[in-house]
């Protein structure tokens, strides 16, 4: 296991705090997420076999692993759609069971309700004041002008942005992203990366991002972990300042290192 903490990162955030503090900065939403020995099998197939992970509040973690290794299964356990056979999920010191209002999951496909407008899809939970919250979230993802349209007429990238707006309305403390950009073209992906990074920097929700794309992982995350054989087998911090440059040789070297572990 490799751990490298970059001393500069603390400096940068301290700097930020000094220079930006007077402006109305949204309070960080993130909560500490701890996964303790999660086990889940389907029939004879042990998919997760005692997976543990400790994520500090507000950290951005990318999870990589081969197809079928159990990444989506892990997300379903964390969000509460499925229960582990053993182990538990702990949020801010509290063991949780079942669906949590502080945890939101963005699926690989947008899963918009075709019979609702973009706006009412975003405000699907219909919490008090949902309309204003939905409009705000839609402008955060740059779709404020499309709120009265049917989802069917949006492009793939736009749909995924609507789905992102929908999870943002819930003001999650823990945001789970299950390969949300997997189906998008390269240009749109880069756009979505920028959007996600900006939102995360603003709100600092604790984030788990599943991705097949190691370049995406090192471009966005504070930390990359690899899942293999039902466990966490590799864990590395990404010590690069933001905004990051894709051509950064340090990141490229990191990518190779991670790829060797997958």
């Amino acid at each position, binding site marked *: 296991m490799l751990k490298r903490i970059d001393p500069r990162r603390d400096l940068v955030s301290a700097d930020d705090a000094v220079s930006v503090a007077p402006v109305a900065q949204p309070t960080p939403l993130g909560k500490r997420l701890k996964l303790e020995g999660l086990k889940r099998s389907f029939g004879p197939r042990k998919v997760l076999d005692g997976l543990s992970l400790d994520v500090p509040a507000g950290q951005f973690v990318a999870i990589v692993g081969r197809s079928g290794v159990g990444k989506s299964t892990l997300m379903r356990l964390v969000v509460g759609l499925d229960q582990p056979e053993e182990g538990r999920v702990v949020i801010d010191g509290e063991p949780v069971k079942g669906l949590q209002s502080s945890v939101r*999951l963005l699926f690989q496909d947008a*899963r918009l309700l075709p019979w609702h407008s973009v706006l009412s899809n975003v405000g699907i939970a219909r919490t008090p004041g949902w309309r204003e919250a939905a409009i705000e979230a839609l402008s955060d993802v740059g779709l404020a002008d499309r709120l009265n*349209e049917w989802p069917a007429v949006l492009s793939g990238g736009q749909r995924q942005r609507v789905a992102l707006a929908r999870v943002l309305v819930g003001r999650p403390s823990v945001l789970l992203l299950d390969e949300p950009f997997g189906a998008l073209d390269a240009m749109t992906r880069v756009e979505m990366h920028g959007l996600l990074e900006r939102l995360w920097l603003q709100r600092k929700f604790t984030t788990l991002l599943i991705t097949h794309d190691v370049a995406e992982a090192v471009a966005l995350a504070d930390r990359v972990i690899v899942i293999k054989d039902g466990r966490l087998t590799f864990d590395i911090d990404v010590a690069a300042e933001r905004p990051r440059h894709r051509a950064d040789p340090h990141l490229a070297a990191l990518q190779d290192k991670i790829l060797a572990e997958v």
Partner: protein
Amino acid sequence: MSRISRGESFVDRLTPWLLPVSVLVLWEICTRVGLIEQRVLPAPSQVAVAFWENAKSGALAHHVMVSFNRAIVGLAIGGSIGFILGVLNGVSRPAEKLFDSGLQMLRNVPHLAIIPMVILWFGIDETAKIFLVAVGTMFPIYLNTFHGIRTVDRGLVEMAKVNGLGRFAIFWRVVLPGAMPSVLVGLRYALGIMWLTLIVAETISASSGIGYMTMNAREFLQTDVVVLGILVYALLGKAADFATKLIEHRVLAWHPAYHASGSVSA
């Protein structure tokens, strides 16, 4: 549709009418010169006269209203029962276990086969006709509602769950709208069965309604009224079809097949 026809010339638009109109003209000529006996088939003009006379006396409107009433009441009863059972069995496995196989067995009995029993139970009363229509329309709506609810995208239900929707909200906002296309397919089938049932039931036993009107006319060899009755049934069937199309456009406005612009109109 309309966009295409706008570009068509006058002749193009007349073409589809060419065949039916010539058939009518030919038919009229054949009956006039005696090639077809009136007892076999009345001339179109005679049917038109029969229509005019029956309309003037109010008899036609009376029979149509009676038939229409039976159809709607029967459909409302049968459709509601089918819909409620479909929803119930769709959302609840225990309910499905309890009801479904029984309903499947009943479904295999052709409902027109029970007409003799129905006459014994209810006589030739209104109840008999309404009962038959209700039984006939219940099953297509039941089956399609059940199927629609069972085949709602699981992904959408999960999405609703993780976004904090409760069971009722999931039902109203996800499951039911998702089942709607299928429910409407059931409604279409039901409408076809509704008219068919009514035609048979009214022809066999009734003292009013279009079926009665035609059977009565048959006794007096008024073939023109019989043909008129057949035409009225056809028109009512067409009207029912049109009504479902309107409902579909309204209920399935979100469906890409129904919206041209993409914006949600209020």
